[in-house]
């Protein structure tokens, strides 16, 4: 680049960066595109060689079948389970985290003990949980899974919110206490707005955890509250796999997460970086 003038050199460098960025985007987006496009293909097109890069005619039939058979209902089930359990985990977790930070409830050890619960491999407890649920009659109920997801996500919520709440200057809360707020009002009017970014970021992750959960949904559900992750596996047959259905179901399953992340993106970026840098 010795013979290129300085202002040109900058442009060339920028050009390289764009090319690199485009390549990376391609690598990451292509599988999503492929999944999406399969869901609109006919069975012949799916297995055609050379591959069909885009379908000749868009086939909605793959989706129609899902709705006709009631399989699409499983996406709604997942949505109910994930949002409800996220809601409860966020409420309980934030209150618990506030208590840990401000009142040093249980000392330092309790917080570590709580997060250690998250490290337990789910498969290690799935059998005892199953027996317990059979005993209480909670198998294949919304209540059972919401309870489990809430309990499973609580440690994560508490751990994350603890960090965000610790970053809130104590004086803000004290000032509110003097100005006439009760502890609950302080939590609602000061802590929640101050930790808003962290709250949203944590909620998105909690939602995604519950949304993607597979093991417990497989073991603890039968027909009533089947989640979409379990439903997808039904299409992997012994003889053949229903690729079109798998693709269509996966697209349906991606949409809510896509919207959750897209709408919360602003808070997500702020929330994640907020925990990283103090100040």
């Amino acid at each position, binding site marked *: 680049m010795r013979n290129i003038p300085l202002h040109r050199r900058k442009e060339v460098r920028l050009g390289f960066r764009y090319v690199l960025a485009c390549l990376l985007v391609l690598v990451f987006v292509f599988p999503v595109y492929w999944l999406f496009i399969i869901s609109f293909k006919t069975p012949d097109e799916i297995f055609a060689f050379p591959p069909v890069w885009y379908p000749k005619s868009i086939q909605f039939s793959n989706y129609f079948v899902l709705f006709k058979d009631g399989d699409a209902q499983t996406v709604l089930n997942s949505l109910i389970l994930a949002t409800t359990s996220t809601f409860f985990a966020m409420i309980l977790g934030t209150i618990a985290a506030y208590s840990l930070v401000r009142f040093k409830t249980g000392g330092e050890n309790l917080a570590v003990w709580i997060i250690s619960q998250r490290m337990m491999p789910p498969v290690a407890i799935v059998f005892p949980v199953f027996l317990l649920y059979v005993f209480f009659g909670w198998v294949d109920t919304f209540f059972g899974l919401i309870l489990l997801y809430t309990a499973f996500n609580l440690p994560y919520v508490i751990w994350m919110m603890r960090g965000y709440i610790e970053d809130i*200057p104590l004086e803000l809360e*004290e*000032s509110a206490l*003097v100005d006439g707020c009760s502890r609950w009002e302080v939590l609602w009017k000061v802590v929640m*707005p101050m930790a808003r970014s962290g709250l949203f970021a944590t909620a998105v992750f909690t939602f995604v955890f519950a949304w993607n959960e597979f093991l417990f949904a497989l073991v603890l559900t039968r027909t009533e509250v089947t989640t979409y992750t379990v439903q997808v596996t039904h299409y992997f047959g012994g003889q053949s796999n229903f690729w079109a259905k798998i693709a269509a179901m996966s697209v349906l399953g991606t949409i809510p997460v896509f919207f959750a992340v897209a709408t919360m993106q602003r808070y997500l970026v702020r929330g994640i970086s907020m925990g990283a840098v103090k100040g």
Partner: protein
Amino acid sequence: MSDLKITGLHKYYGAFHAVKGIDLEVPSGEFTVLVGPSGCGKSTLLRTIAGLEEASDGVIEIGNKDVTWARPRDRDIAMVFQNYALYPYMNVFENIAFGLRARKIAPAEINSRVKRAADMLGIGALLQRLPRELSGGQRQRVAIGRAIVRDARLFLFDEPLSNLDAQLRDDMRVEIKRLHQELKRTMIYVTHDQIEAMTLADRIVLLRDGRIEQLGAPLDLFERPAGLFVAGFLGSPKMNFLPATLAGSSAVLSDGTKLVLPRKHGGKNGQAIILGIRPQHIALSGKKPMLGHAQLKVTTELVQPTGSRVHVTFPLGGKTVVADFEFHAVSKPGEKISIDIDMTRAIIFDPQSETVI
């Protein structure tokens, strides 16, 4: 009538005894300053009055009502914090109105009270701004606005100016003093800055190690300190302390310099003492020494002009002594000068008990 009465107040943090039995009564409308070096318990005392810390023992009464165990919001107090404590997601208006809203005051009333407070502090034009769009001084005004809008019985200030730069600190000090004169409310103000304490206070409470060392009007403490600590804490530059021995009506410094003590004192002949002389009580000597003044010749070591005054350092009695002269008085170090010490205002301390003899 007193707005605040504290009786036998103690505060422990585990084994650490932060406040060691404070008795204090603050009359209505008085500006009281709690001052002392860091770790003396002044902020703890203020926070205990506010109810942000629980008293370990003792009674706190605000407006003749025992509030020792009351929640902060039930104490009829307003407080200004060191770091402003403004809510970053609310604009200035909402920040000032926060306490009124929490107390469910009618919106029309909130409006007029916020406007009045903002005008009083000269931030009427900033009501729609967010705290991050304000300068440090403006933020502190908003914080003060949030307190005065409350119309509380007791106003507490926890080192409100220590985050501001020197120029702004001077301006805000004037502002707070003016505010007190206008509102005529009882204010309790914590600072470690003795100049703030001297200029603002109707009465200073000087704390040390969790106890009240001395309390009284600023000039009383300055002119008649109870002991070495108070004498050394108040005044800038610091009071000079010279070890000496009493010989009749004179004090003999370690280098043999004899200084006549014109005032009566309770010391005995031959007793070791510490002689306290304020830098302001040393002047360049005129022709004849006045009655009760001592005249000495010294060689200057250090000359520090401050603008209006000049601080000159010289050795005397084995110690380095600072004098506060008129500007232009001395130009360079190493100069031989003749000084005049006002011995009528010198203070004699007992080195053991550190009290005035």
